[in-house]
């Protein structure tokens, strides 16, 4: 066997590769599989949050804001607990970002509120005079694309096994269920229910009126998404 290998350099090279790759395999794969499992308490996005996520991507928020807190004291003091890989288990695509022109947003839901976002997104300088972020006034008039968000949810559930309508273990030992609509009409209804809850904390009368009429401005979806980042 070994004499044979010594006379066939190509197969010898393959054998060497297999032996070395095996060592890597047993060290890397189990850890990776463990770390990429969803962390207890990680929930998939609800419909309105998913729509807000699309707004986030559409406006390229991820070009200036990361969603990845590194394990350094300076960062955890400012943003909260460092990020774990399992927390991104349902992120598709991930929004880690590679540049921080603005602050990290991975746990922004813990320390910013609906009211704050409402003021901030229209004119960031009004709440943070030194901010260099531009305003996003069109979010208050553009309508949210619920159909696409629902299609994304369906895709995630069917092809990637994201557990919608299934019990998800939470940190306190209980289980939570993130509901997904069964039809497009039901989806619109569900999104509107969620939007009403967000809007009840908002001040802008036009936004309130729009939601009362059954339209959801993008700002509502975006705030729902940002509030879900914890």
């Amino acid at each position, binding site marked *: 066997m070994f004499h044979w290998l010594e006379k066939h350099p190509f197969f010898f090279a393959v054998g060497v590769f297999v032996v070395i790759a095996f060592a890597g395999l047993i060290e890397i794969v189990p850890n990776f599989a463990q770390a990429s499992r969803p962390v207890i308490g990680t929930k998939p996005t609800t419909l309105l949050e998913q729509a807000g996520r699309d707004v986030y991507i559409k406006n390229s928020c991820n070009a200036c804001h990361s969603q990845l807190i590194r*394990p350094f*004291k300076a960062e955890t*003091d400012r943003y909260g607990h460092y990020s774990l890989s399992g927390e991104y288990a349902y992120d598709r695509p991930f929004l880690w970002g590679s540049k921080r022109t603005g602050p990290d947003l991975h746990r922004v839901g813990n320390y910013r509120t609906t009211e704050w976002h409402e003021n901030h997104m229209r004119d960031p300088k009004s709440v943070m005079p030194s901010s260099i972020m531009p305003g996003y006034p069109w979010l208050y008039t553009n309508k949210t694309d619920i159909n696409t968000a629902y299609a994304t949810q369906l895709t995630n559930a069917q092809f990637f096994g994201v557990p919608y309508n299934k019990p998800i273990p939470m940190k306190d030992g209980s289980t939570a269920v993130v509901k997904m609509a069964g039809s497009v009409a039901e989806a619109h209804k569900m999104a509107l229910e969620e939007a009403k809850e967000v809007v009840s904390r908002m001040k802008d009368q036009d936004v309130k009126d729009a939601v009362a009429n059954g339209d959801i401005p993008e700002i509502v979806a975006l705030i729902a998404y940002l509030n879900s980042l914890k």
Partner: protein
Amino acid sequence: MNKLYLWGIIITIAMLGATYATVGYQKGGLNDDIVNMLAIAGAVALVIITVFVVIKYVRQMQTDQATGELADESWDNIGEYKNPVPFGWAIMFLGTIIWGMWYFIIGYPVDAFSQIGQYNEEVAEKNAKFEKEYANIKGEKLVEMGESVFLAECVVCHGANADGIDGESADLNRRIDEESVKYVINHGSNNKLLGTEMPMPDRNGLFNANTGALISDAEIDAVAKYVANGFPADDKEGAAVFAGVCSSCHGADGRGMAYVAPNIREYTSELIVNVLTHGKKGAIGTMPSLERLNAKQKEAVAAYVISISKGE
């Protein structure tokens, strides 16, 4: 003398000369710098050892005769002796096996580098340093620390002057505004301001002891004005409502009662620490909890807010 040794000596002298020249002409030279002297000594040893080891093997190559049993294989007629493994190699091989066992059992699973472990060490070290440095901080220094925390954490909502940026958040230069008093009376309150759940009833549970009836709209306006303006002595109407409705829990002077109701006349350290810990929901909106501040930082923010509410 053997020609080989002659060459050895010539090369040794040449290399030592080159070393001497290189080090000698450098800044510091040979005399002033102990490191340069050590480098020279090391170079002398290295050169001599190298040259004479090379000489030994060259001589061995010149005189050695091949002996021993040949292996079966030959590649293009180049054979291989079945020599035993050299002793040094054998030692290294065994050493590698022992190291491998250590790494397999302890090195990788128990003692491996982890960035989270490094992070935990960093945090423990910084926290210990913080505890040590600020264990007995008080007075002016505490207010200064509070100001720096405020500028980092609170300023985004409360503004640099702590005036709440046109009603976007609470104005911390005063204890409470009229709008908030009315909101609390109308909706009740359950904000863990004393650290535990201690709900205040809404207007359907607030009786005026003077009239024996539920608090009325006019009375709410009067008492809101009275509380928001800091309990002015000349506001008899508001004072009467306060005495009838609020004083049973908040105290006759509005300074609160332990375990029952918070001070609504001025800020207290306990109140602010609890708001920072639990967050707050009120007329203006929701304030998130700032749990990640440590106890000393919360105390410092409290000291700072108390100092600005007094106009200092």
